[in-house]
């Protein structure tokens, strides 16, 4: 690897605590094969030195200020045009297992584990099939895998970026089972315009609505999340993952991953848009139709990428880096 040497030397100039965090989350296996599992992140984090250099975003504000009126295209409110062009540039490498989406490929199995955790307490019929809506599906890493699940009654996957939808459709052809009618449908749309593509209201109701690595790319999350809830059946789960706005996550996902190591292309993330787990939960509590009691209604799990070992669930890490969240819509009768 050509970049190893300069990278390592730059890295070694950093203060020890910072260096360790950086190594834990972002170094490639060739550089550090047996890195420790990063459980002690919180303690060693360089929190005091970088905090509050950026302003906080307030959900109430976001909700109170509807998206500024932009020239109305089919992809409107939730969609950030710079994000769309950024992801269209990435489209071609989406399915390269060694390319810039590698970490997403590696994370995908954990998404299913997390969904299983959310559904574990449900009294569903054995063999009951669920309808999935994957919002911000990108090249289809999760959507394809959901469509292959035994419990899938079909997946609708949407993304506002035309190029990634084209990539997703193209890629799905490599697995004939995905092409069987009703298994997997890609729609190039923003979520708020889903009704234009699925006019039948019943067709817009899903048991599981997923938002993986999406809300950090959304300028106005509150109205966006409301739109997502509209597609959720009573008793269904809104499940997603994102990155917490923390000095550690700034350091690992912006500085190390984008600038120093180039693991993901520059401009992939806007750290200011990262959302804290408690902010998300506060928002959920304000939504009357959501059940947010710990366990049956609300689930959260922090995950950390450990070079050489892959993604690992680490309890408590949700406040400093990547985390999953799940929140249940109240059922018709109870809850």
């Amino acid at each position, binding site marked *: 690897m050509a970049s190893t040497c300069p990278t390592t030397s730059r890295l070694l100039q950093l203060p020890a605590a910072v260096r360790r965090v950086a190594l834990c989350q972002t170094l490639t296996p060739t550089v550090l094969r047996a890195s420790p599992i990063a459980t002690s992140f919180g303690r060693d984090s360089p929190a005091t030195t970088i905090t509050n250099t950026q302003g906080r975003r307030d959900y109430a504000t976001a909700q109170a200020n509807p998206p500024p009126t932009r020239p109305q295209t089919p992809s409107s409110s939730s969609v950030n045009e710079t994000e769309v062009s950024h992801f269209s540039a990435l489209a071609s490498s989406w399915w390269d297992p060694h390319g810039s989406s590698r970490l997403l490929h590696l994370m995908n199995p954990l998404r299913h584990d997390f969904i299983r955790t959310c559904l574990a307490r449900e009294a569903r019929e054995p063999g009951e099939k669920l309808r999935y809506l994957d919002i911000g599906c990108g090249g289809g890493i999760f959507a394809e895998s959901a469509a292959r699940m*035994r419990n899938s009654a079909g997946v609708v996957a949407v993304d506002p970026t035309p190029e990634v939808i084209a990539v997703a459709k193209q890629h799905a052809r*490599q697995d*004939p089972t995905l092409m069987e009618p009703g298994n997997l449908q890609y729609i190039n749309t923003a979520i708020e315009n889903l009704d234009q593509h699925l006019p039948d209201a019943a067709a817009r109701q899903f048991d599981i609505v997923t938002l993986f690595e999406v809300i950090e790319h959304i300028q106005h999350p509150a109205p966006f999340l409301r739109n997502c809830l509209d597609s959720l059946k009573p008793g269904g789960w809104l499940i997603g993952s994102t990155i917490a706005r923390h000095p550690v996550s700034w350091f690992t996902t912006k500085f190390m991953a984008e600038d120093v190591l180039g693991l993901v292309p520059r401009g992939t993330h806007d750290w200011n848009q990262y959302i804290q787990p408690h902010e998300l939960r506060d928002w959920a509590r304000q939504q009357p139709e959501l059940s947010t009691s710990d366990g049956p209604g609300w689930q959260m799990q922090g995950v950390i990428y450990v070079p050489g070992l892959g993604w690992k669930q680490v309890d408590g890490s949700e406040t400093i880096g990547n985390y999953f969240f799940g929140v249940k819509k109240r059922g018709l009768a109870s809850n």
Partner: protein
Amino acid sequence: MPSRPLLLKRLLALPPTLRRSFWSSSSTNTTTTPPSPSQPELYDIVCVGGGPAGLSFLAALHSHPATRSLKTALIDTQDLTTSRSANDANDAYSNRCSSLTPASLRFLKDIGAWEHVDRRRVQPYHAMDVWDGVSGSRMHFDPMDREGGAGGLLGSLAEMLPGSRFQASRRKYETAGMEEEAGVVATMCENMNLTAALLQRLKELQKEGTGVKMLDKTKVDSIQLGSAPASDTAPDLSQWPVVTTPTGDRLAARVLIGADGANSPVRTFANIPAHGWDYNQHGVVATLTLAPPSTPTPFHTAYQRFLPTGPIALLPLPNNQASLVWSTTPHHAQTLKTLSPTNFTAAITAAFHLLPTDLTHLLTHPNLSYPSELTWRLPATPAKTTNLPANFPTITHLQENTRAAFPLRYRHASTYTSPHLALLGDAAHTIHPLAGQGLNLGLADARALAHVLADGVQHGMDIGTEGCLDSYSAERWGRNNAVLGAVDKLQKVYSVGSGPVVWGRSLGVEVFERLGGLKGLVMGAAGGGSGGR
């Protein structure tokens, strides 16, 4: 039309990715048969090879809830339906026997196959005597006896082997559980008995509706990648291997499994190199009859003596029969195959009892009467000088038509997977038989691959992709390489007839033999406690 060698040359000049796209058995003229335009039938799994590795893999797959209903097919040249009747009735034993480690046995039980094994034809053994024909140093493995122990090279080897008696015996001492297999070092089983049981299990699963499509008596004709899709909206099978049979059946595989033995056509198609060397040794196998022991015992022992020409092993079978695996020079192997049955039987006795020089003398004079040679050579060679174990049995005769010889090789594929393809068993590795590990490694591969695929299905992966299959290669390659390397080193160290290596190896063995306390520690692990009988 270009000639075959010319075509081959052109093919080899292509980059590996393109080269990978075609394999054809040499018996068919590939240049004249254009690929059939018909759509191939789609399978999740197409397994080439119905040996122990392939069959146990399929049985494991269909026994797991996540992978039970995958659509699978098995292709094998042999007739898989009649293998059992060949050995069912009589007291004759096949010369292809393997010792199954406790870990292999557990796997076979887990997948519901062991209950179909004909138990009258398997023989557990409870101890192993290994000694060095040159230095005379000796060790005794016996999980029931903490005073007997093992060490040195073999001991550390035994530690490494997955599911070996060492690990098994430790576990026994830790759990103090007295199960059926308590104290068992390994279990001798005819390969045929095992494959018949696995087929029986697959039939049973078929009745439960999760069957394998059986294409036996079918040789793989060619393997190539699927053709480019007909339209922009058609499924794209251009990365899927498509297997063609002589009857024109075409099977497209999400995962093509190469369980097709040491000369794996699947490995050739995938263009995966297998590095290694020939040992310049042949393994002579035979089934022997032994004199009944003077005092009948339920405990059985396996014997192995290291000779400068290679190790000779006598492994117990039921009814005072035993399986022979004698690794020796190709020249001696040839002699052994042509000896009269009486001389052959006497030669085996000589190989265990006499000094290596006497043995070499006999084998270079095949016209001597070995039995009469033995009558004066045996008394002249006291067991003390060769370290022959006291209870070593008397070999009475050779079972007819069981003599065979195989060239012994070391081969290890550089990887076990490529997109839509995985290798297991002898297709991935061949190993010297001295530690009896070949088939056990194949079963461990089968178990690991079935596990990886089940995990992939449970997470919605396309199980044909590298993302799924690579974890199988990652899990097995290193472990197999360690065992292959250890067995190879053992082979090399013990192939030396004199000099410092011999001196060194006898020291290694004997130091351990003398330090009873240390041995006990190694064997019993936890220390204290009341292991043993």
